[in-house]
């Protein structure tokens, strides 16, 4: 069975969002502070970096993160980035003074985890703007999945790694809050996690 690692930043008594535990994989939870300081053998099929993660501590674990990436690791990263913890990441750029139209979500590329979702899957209880209000700028070579508004801010993108592996970036509050409940079909978080793991295990990502 696939193994997923959830990086926890605070409050050990709080469980991760339920969606991360239901993707048909075992979920290991580790405090970011307890991660190795140096490169180590990759042990998980997917690493989840949830919203509000401790980016200061992630920065201290850069050697481990870069080692995972070099070994073909896969990541599902959430939230705005203030202090980049991998070399290809850049700080969040918000949409300046967004109108409601600027918060509209558009599909930029087909993607199996998103294609079957209903319109409005990105609305949080009917609210626009929670899914995202800008982007963590996509690095060269990234595939943009979803954009926001007139300026086509890349709210969701992924980057294929140097040795297989894949980094999926959702530049807003945790994607597990969107169409990922027990009654949501398809389940966005489960579908995305499974897709990331399938993609990062493929021998050749370039068709």
């Amino acid at each position, binding site marked *: 069975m696939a193994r997923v690692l959830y990086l926890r930043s*605070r409050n050990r008594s709080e469980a991760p969002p339920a969606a991360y535990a239901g993707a048909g994989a075992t979920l290991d939870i580790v405090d970011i502070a307890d991660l190795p300081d140096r490169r180590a053998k990759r042990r998980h099929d997917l690493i989840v970096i949830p919203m*509000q993660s401790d980016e*200061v501590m992630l920065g201290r674990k850069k050697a481990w993160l870069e080692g995972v990436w070099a070994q073909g690791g896969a990541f599902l990263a959430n939230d*705005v980035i203030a*202090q980049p913890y991998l070399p290809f990441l850049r*700080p969040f750029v918000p949409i300046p003074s967004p109108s409601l139209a600027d918060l509209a979500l558009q599909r930029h590329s087909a993607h199996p985890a998103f294609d079957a979702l209903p319109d409005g899957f990105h609305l*949080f209880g*009917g*609210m626009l703007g929670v899914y995202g*209000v800008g982007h963590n700028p996509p690095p060269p070579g990234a595939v943009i999945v979803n954009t926001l508004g007139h300026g086509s801010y890349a709210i969701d993108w992924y980057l294929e790694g140097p040795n297989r592996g894949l980094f999926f970036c959702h530049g807003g509050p945790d994607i597990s809050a969107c169409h990922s409940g027990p009654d949501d079909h398809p389940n966005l978080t489960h579908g995305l996690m499974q897709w990331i793991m399938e993609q990062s295990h493929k021998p050749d990502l370039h068709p």
Partner: protein
Amino acid sequence: MDHIAYFRDLTPADLRGRKAAIIACRSDNDLLQAHASLFQAYLEEGGFLIVMGGLRADLIDPRIAYRETPSNFQWFMQAKPDSGHRRRTPGHSLHRFLAVENMQWHRHGYYLAPAGADRLVELCRPHSEERVGDILFDDRGGFKGRLMATTLDPHMHHGGHYIPAATRFLNGFYPWVRAEIGAALFPLPRFEAGTVQEDVQHATL
């Protein structure tokens, strides 16, 4: 901000001589518990400690009670929206810097402030004055110093860019803090909507 300390690395030297210390929202309650005696000592030396939302001020002062609630994210979408937040202690200096409209967004629980505390934002049942608890209070009864606590989480939401009231809160709150400790009011600390403020992100930890 004159000094920013990464919460995990906090030492007594970080607090020594500081007229005010703010623990930013969504910091780690396990670390708060570990540092509780440090903060209690700071308060006993006359310090002014401000504990933001997502944190449990009752870990520092057991006279405080905290009550968990579901978050009412869609409160403003009601036909006649009412957050339940009510301005109290109208003569308190904070009210000259912040209107109650800038001290309301969705809820993350509430406190029951200790007896004698200045209740600044009270939580009432919507469309009523029936008290539920406290969203923000200012207490001088537990220590030689001063403990202010709120369940509001403005740093986190300012950094998230989707709750403008959080940015307005910070733009009123920090000048108030400076005024309270006798610091120069100008240049005003300014939180800009549409920017990522690394120092605030740093302070959240």
